[in-house]
């Protein structure tokens, strides 16, 4: 349903501001994730520090969204599409905040890795990292475009992220077996893989919200999942 403007302009502006804040927050989360993947691959400690410092930007967006949503509910009593805009903004912002946190954690773990890693291992992480990065970008696009199909694609494609996570885990285990000295780094690597997988999960949560926002209906049924990575 395309929608004409509100009769009350200030209400229209508030809804627009909420949407813009989500998009800014999403863009920032994408940036943080992207930097954390780079920082890991290049072992760039300065970049890692920057990611850790900038997480507060994402937290500030989350606060702002929560504040806006509570005000909209209290003062405007949104209905129909406006209600869905308001409620999904709150939920999406909390997923984005988690994505920010997990990216920060990847940066922290990166700083604890004290040895150069093999190209193979880094490639394996890059594959996973780029996959979830792409998912995050797609899901933000689906929000921007109000596209239920984009959202559903993200929701369905997370299975591939699970498969890539398993591959990463296997590679890390191989690395651990090579040398007892690798234990310290290997533990960090397992955390990083797990964090990336979690980020993928959060993108599917956002996809569910976008789907509800657009259709008013919930994505039904079980998401296609590769559950092996959950055993770890």
């Amino acid at each position: 349903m395309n929608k004409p403007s509100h009769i009350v302009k200030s209400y229209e502006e508030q809804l627009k501001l909420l949407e813009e804040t989500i998009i800014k927050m999403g863009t920032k989360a994408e940036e943080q994730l992207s930097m954390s993947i780079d920082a890991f691959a290049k072992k760039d400690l300065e970049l890692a520090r920057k990611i850790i410092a900038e997480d507060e930007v994402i937290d500030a967006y989350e606060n702002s969204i929560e504040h806006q949503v509570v005000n909209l509910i209290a003062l405007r009593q949104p209905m129909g599409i406006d209600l869905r805009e308001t409620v999904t903004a709150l939920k999406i912002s909390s997923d984005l905040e988690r994505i920010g946190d997990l990216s920060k954690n990847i940066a922290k773990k990166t700083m604890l890795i004290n040895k150069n890693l093999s190209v193979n291992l880094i490639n394996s992480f890059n594959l996973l990292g780029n996959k979830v990065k792409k998912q995050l970008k797609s899901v933000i696009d689906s929000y921007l475009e109000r596209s239920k199909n984009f959202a559903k694609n993200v929701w369905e494609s997370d299975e591939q992220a699970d498969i890539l996570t398993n591959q990463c885990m296997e590679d890390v285990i191989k690395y651990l077996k090579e040398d007892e000295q690798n234990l310290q780094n290997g533990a960090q690597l397992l955390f990083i893989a797990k964090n990336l997988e979690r980020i993928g999960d959060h993108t599917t949560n956002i996809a569910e919200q976008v789907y509800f926002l657009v259709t008013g209906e919930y994505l039904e049924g079980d998401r296609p999942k590769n559950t092996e990575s959950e055993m770890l």
Partner: protein
Amino acid sequence: MINEKIKISTKNLNVFYGSKQALFDISINLVQNKVTALIGPSGCGKSTFIRCLNRMNDVIDICKVEGSIKIDGDEINKKDLDVNLIREKVGMVFQKPNPFPKSIYDNIAYGPRIHGLAENREDLDNIVEHSLKKAALWDEVKDRLTQPGTGLSGGQQQRLCIARTISINPDVILMDEPCSALDPIATAKIEELIDELKEIYTIVIVTHSMSQAARVSQDTGFFHLGKILEFNSTEKIFKNPDNKLTQDYITGRFG
């Protein structure tokens, strides 16, 4: 849903004021013991519609009502019917409280008296007390039943009118913007009352307040230019309406 009984059913209801058509082919079912809210912009026909349900439009000479209106399966839109019997069954509460210029007691006792519902004074006392209690007004007025009803506050007057409606023991209560002249506390009391009364009665409420429709009703009908554009569960209407115009109306985007 199971165990839902249709209380009122209209089919191809068309209403004309002279040559102007006010309602077009209204076919809806109102479920027993539910509150149905009717919403829509001014002049859309919602008041005209509820006035059909107790034949109130009969008093307007130029008004012509065509089509079927069934209550409990019995057709009420036919000539040879005693409208008093319908109005006994279908009570009405209006926008502005309109108590009779009589005592609080007589405001309630009037209906049962003329309908012969009380055998003696004790019967009548019981009906008055019962009706005032049902309308959540008894505690506030029990010590001043002989004082004029018009001396009560607006919210109390409206509950007095609801008590007056209840006193003749109707099946259906029609409410035409019953809270639009009331403050939020009086409104909340009426809404709480509506919630309780639906256990016994079938209620149809016309309201301009979207949030009130959302709060009190289980079903909602959206009227526009004399047609019913959407009739759905209240939850559906306010979360995800099917009709684009419904959405524009409830969200305040009506062009």
